[in-house]
Structures are given as structure tokens and as C-alpha cells.
């Protein structure tokens, strides 16, 4: 059946082996371009072009109605760089990231170690710990706001009446706690994969030496997880720098309330655009923050990332 159809189709068009080969190559390339046309169009129009367009906008006075006047220059950049609110945003996100990443990694690794034992109900526990990571951040934050409000469940348990997410001195740590909880499940999945790639004979050697579990962990497991540590620091560090949803919901907008404690860079960009209708400044802040994250990524790849065994 198969042979007969190919034979009947091959016979009429046979102007020579070379040209059919060339025809097939050309046809394949044609199909190739045809197939990637739509995806490349989407990426070009909604990723590459906006990237360039953002830089363009950042050099103009740009309001809700578009470009205002023909003046262009780096004034938006100097506005952003001299804006004390932007400095606050950078300081807040730096503090947040330095606090949340070690906690996420510590909790995620602890959960992974618990799950990695030979236990009953392993899947149940893994799913329980992982679920907050995939549940909607809006719903989780809304629930947290209720549990941690002045008369909420948390205060009933510890006997306090602090509004954790409404007080400028505690809101930062409250978001750190919230996101440590929700992100640790994802960290756990990465560490589990890494733990399962450690060969058993390493542990057998430790067991023969009668090394305590605590010592085995710090002397053997932890150092062997080095590539996973570095991977997680880079991935979750960059994730932390993009904090937006929780800060926006806690403050019920992009005001940075209470007292600029939730003012982080992406909130700043959003507020400049939709609060102050200054798209030029917002675009400039976006470019500046992109450069900062890009530089940090390069530095991390060259320092911690470099020590990864090939």
C-alpha cells in the first residue's frame, strides 16, 4: 500500500535526482518558515518590538494621550534616579530579596529532606507542601490578609492585636513570611530532584562509618547539593526581585501603603504609569530596573553559577 502510492507519485515527476533533492530542500525550508512565521510574529510584535519601544518612550515626555511635544533627552532617567521614592523601592526590594531567598531555600530544602525519606503517604505530603505554590497569589494573599488582620486567627492564637499587613513596621516581614510559605513548595520540588540524583552508595559509606544523620547532612548531602543551591539562588532571587501581586493587593493599589513600605520597583513603574500618567518616567524606570536585574544575573552566573560542575 505504502510502496504503491510512493511509486505512482514518484514516476511522473522525475526530471533528475539532483533537482528533486533541491526541490525537497526548498519545500522543507518553505514549510519551516511557514510554521515559525506565526510564533516569530508574536514574539517580534509583543516582546522584541515593545523592548525597543519602551526605550523609545523613555526618552520623551509621554502622557496618557501619547507623546507630548518633541523634546527628547534623558530627563526621565534623571527624574527616576533622583526620585527618593525610587530609592525607597530599590531599598525595599533589596531587603525583601535578601530576607526571602534564604528562608525559601531553607524551608524548601527542609521539606524536600522530609519528603525524601521512605515514608507512607509521600505523595500526599508532597502535594500538601506544593499546593500553595500553584494556587492563585491573589486568593492566597486575600486569605492571609484576613488571618493576619488585627482580630484575625493568628492574633487570637498568639494573643496580640497587631494588624500585620497594615503596619509599616511589620508588612515587609509579613510578605516575606507569606511568600516563603507559598514558594517553598516549588523550591522543594527542585531540591527533591537534586536529592534523588545523589547516588545511594554515598550514604552507604556514611552509614558504615556510623556517622550521625545531622553530620551526614552537613558533611555530605549539603555540599553535594551545591549545584541546586546555586540554581535556586539565581532562579528564586530573580523571582523575588519581580515582587508585584502581593505588594499590590496588600496596599489595595500601587500607593506603597502603609508609608511606602510596599513600594517596590514594579509597583513604582505601575504607579508612575497609571497613578501619575507619566509613561515616559515609567518606561525609564522599567529600563533602569531591567539593566539592574540583567547586571545582577550576569554577576551571579559568573560568580556562583560558575562553580557548578559541568
Amino acid at each position, binding site marked *: 500500500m*505504502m510502496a504503491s*502510492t*510512493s511509486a505512482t507519485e514518484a514516476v511522473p515527476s522525475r526530471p533528475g535526482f539532483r533537482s528533486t533533492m533541491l526541490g525537497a530542500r526548498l519545500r*522543507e*525550508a*518553505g*514549510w*519551516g518558515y511557514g*510554521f515559525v512565521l*506565526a*510564533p*516569530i510574529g*508574536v*514574539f517580534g510584535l509583543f*516582546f*522584541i*518590538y*515593545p*523592548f525597543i519601544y*519602551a526605550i523609545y*518612550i523613555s526618552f520623551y515626555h*509621554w502622557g496618557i494621550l501619547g507623546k507630548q511635544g518633541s523634546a527628547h533627552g534623558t530627563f526621565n532617567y534623571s527624574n527616576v534616579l533622583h526620585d527618593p521614592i525610587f530609592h525607597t523601592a530599590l531599598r525595599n526590594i533589596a531587603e525583601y530579596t535578601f530576607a526571602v531567598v534564604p528562608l525559601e531555600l531553607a524551608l524548601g530544602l527542609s*521539606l524536600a529532606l*522530609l519528603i525524601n525519606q521512605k515514608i507512607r503517604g509521600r*505523595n500526599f*505530603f*508532597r502535594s*500538601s507542601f*506544593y*499546593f500553595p*505554590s*500553584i*494556587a*492563585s*497569589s*491573589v*486568593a492566597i494573599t*486575600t*486569605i492571609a490578609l*484576613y488571618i493576619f488582620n488585627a*482580630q*484575625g*486567627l493568628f492574633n*487570637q492564637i498568639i494573643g496580640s492585636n497587631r494588624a500585620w499587613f497594615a503596619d509599616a513596621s511589620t508588612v515587609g516581614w509579613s510578605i516575606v513570611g507569606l511568600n516563603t*510559605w507559598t514558594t517553598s513548595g516549588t523550591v522543594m*520540588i527542585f531540591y527533591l530532584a537534586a536529592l534523588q540524583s545523589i547516588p545511594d552508595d554515598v550514604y552507604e559509606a556514611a552509614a558504615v562509618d556510623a556517622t550521625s544523620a545531622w553530620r551526614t547532612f552537613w558533611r555530605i548531602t549539603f555540599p553535594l547539593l551545591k549545584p541546586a543551591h546555586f540554581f535556586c539562588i539565581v*532562579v*528564586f532571587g530573580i*523571582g523575588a526581585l*519581580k515582587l*508585584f501581586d502581593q505588594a*499590590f493587593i496588600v496596599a489595595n*493599589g500601587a500607593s506603597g501603603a502603609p508609608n511606602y513600605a510596599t513600594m517596590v520597583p514594579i509597583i513604582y*513603574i505601575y504607579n508612575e*504609569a*497609571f497613578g501619575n500618567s507619566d*509613561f515616559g518616567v*515609567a518606561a525609564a524606570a*522599567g529600563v533602569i*530596573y531591567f539593566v539592574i536585574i540583567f547586571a545582577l544575573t550576569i554577576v551571579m552566573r559568573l560568580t556562583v553559577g560558575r562553580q557548578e560542575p559541568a
Partner: protein
Amino acid sequence: MLQTVAAAEPYVPPKSRKDAVRKAMFYALMLLVALIFFTPFIWTFITAFKTLPDSVNVTSLPHPWTTSAWHRVWADSDFPTYIKNSLFLAAVIVVCNIFLAGLGGYAFARLRFPGRNLLFVLVLGTLMVPEQLRLIPIFVMMVNWGLYGHFESYILINLVTATNLFFMRQYFLTIPKDFEEAAKLDGASHFKIFWRVMLPLALPAMSALVILQFQGTWNDFFWPLILFGQGVSSHYTIQLGLQQFYGQYQSDVPAVMVGSILAILPVLVIFLAFQRYFVSGVVSSGVKG
């Protein structure tokens, strides 16, 4: 070596009692951690059945249990519209992503054409363009095109993602070439090979893509906020709707909890049914911010 292990066997019984205690403590610890992880969800569920005074006074159990908050949310709020909007957007975006990521992934995995590698680097390069940089130009573009506040704007920017395309390409690379060779001998065109041979073979990858993309679109808050957030309430998605609802009616705690449950529920159901896809997806593609 083997003998020493065997010789140690008789000493196991005395050790096992200590082990049993240890084991019990370990399970107690696990259950405690799981309980801490569950408490917020249990509390949300209980609160959704409380009367308003009960919820403010933080009673442990509702008395009486009432579904009035559910009625308020379902009949008097716009949550049904939010859910409909989210389901519609998720369905369209999932289908577009399967088709376009499949087409592109197949071409990058299998077809030879000049500039293929360069284009592929360009695709991966889009992963470096952060949302905070795209936000201003995409908003301006959509306003200029008259698409601001229309579903089309959200669908357009989500037609296909580099992550999905990469995911499909990686899967196509693992499929043996024999299948296509047979189809080629049969005189099938490349599109026919893609549609009839490769796409069906990539069913496991497509299932993972459907689940992860549904979760991504359902949970998305940022882009609906940008594209519909300036008062286009008829187009609110579930997450944007919940946030706006909370902003307006935060004192109606039971109703807010009902809204939160609705915002979580579909992903919970899918998660319980297809757990392995979530785990494999997160390891191979990336993380939520």
C-alpha cells in the same frame, strides 16, 4: 563486607523499638507541618459558611452554618462573569498555544531552513524581556490599536509563549524519526506529518502544556490588571475581580472567602487529578514569580 552486614542482622530487633518511636515522631512532625500548610485553607473554608458577625468575632466553628455568603457572591456579585471571562480566555489561549507552540516546536526540532538557529536564539531571547519593561509599550500599543479593554488585547499577547514552544520542541526531539520517514515515503506534506503524526505522538507534552497554561492564565493577575484594570469591569478575570471585590467589600469576610475559594478551586481540582504534570512541568520549564 556482605558478611558483616549479615552478621549485624541479629541486632535489629532491639533497635527497632527505638525506630518505632522515632518513626512515630517523624510522622507527627510531618502531619504538623501539613496541618500548618492546610490551616489557612481550612480556615477559609469554615469562614465561607459563617455569618458576618461570626467571621468578625473569629469563632472557631460557624453557628449556624450558612450558605448566605455563597448566595451573595453567586447572585449579587459579578463573580459568575469573572469566572466565565477567565474560562473563555484560558480556553482560547490554551488552544492557540498548543497549535502555535506545536508548529514552531516541530519546525525548530525537525525542519531544516536557513537561519533556524538564529531564529531559535531570538525565541529564547524573549525570555529575557521582563514584564515590567513590556508593560508600558504594550499598554500604549493596545490603546493606539483600539484594543485596550478588549479580550483581543489579552489573547494577542498570550498567543504563544517561548516556554511552551521550547517545551514542545524538546519533546519532539525525543520522538524517533522513523514515524515521519514512513509518512514522508507515503508522500505526506510537512503539515500533514505535523498534524497527523507528530502532534498525536506529542500527546503527553500537550497534556502538560494544557494543564500548566490553564493554571497560568487562570492565576494571572498582572496582565488583566494592565489591560482591563482601569475600570473595564465587564472584562475582569477571576483574579482581578477578586482583588477588586476585596477592595470594595473587604468587611464582608465570608463573601471574600467564597471568592477566594472560587479563585483557587479549578486549579485545585486539576492539581489533584494531574499532579505529575505539575511536578514535571515545574522542573522542566520554570517557576511562578
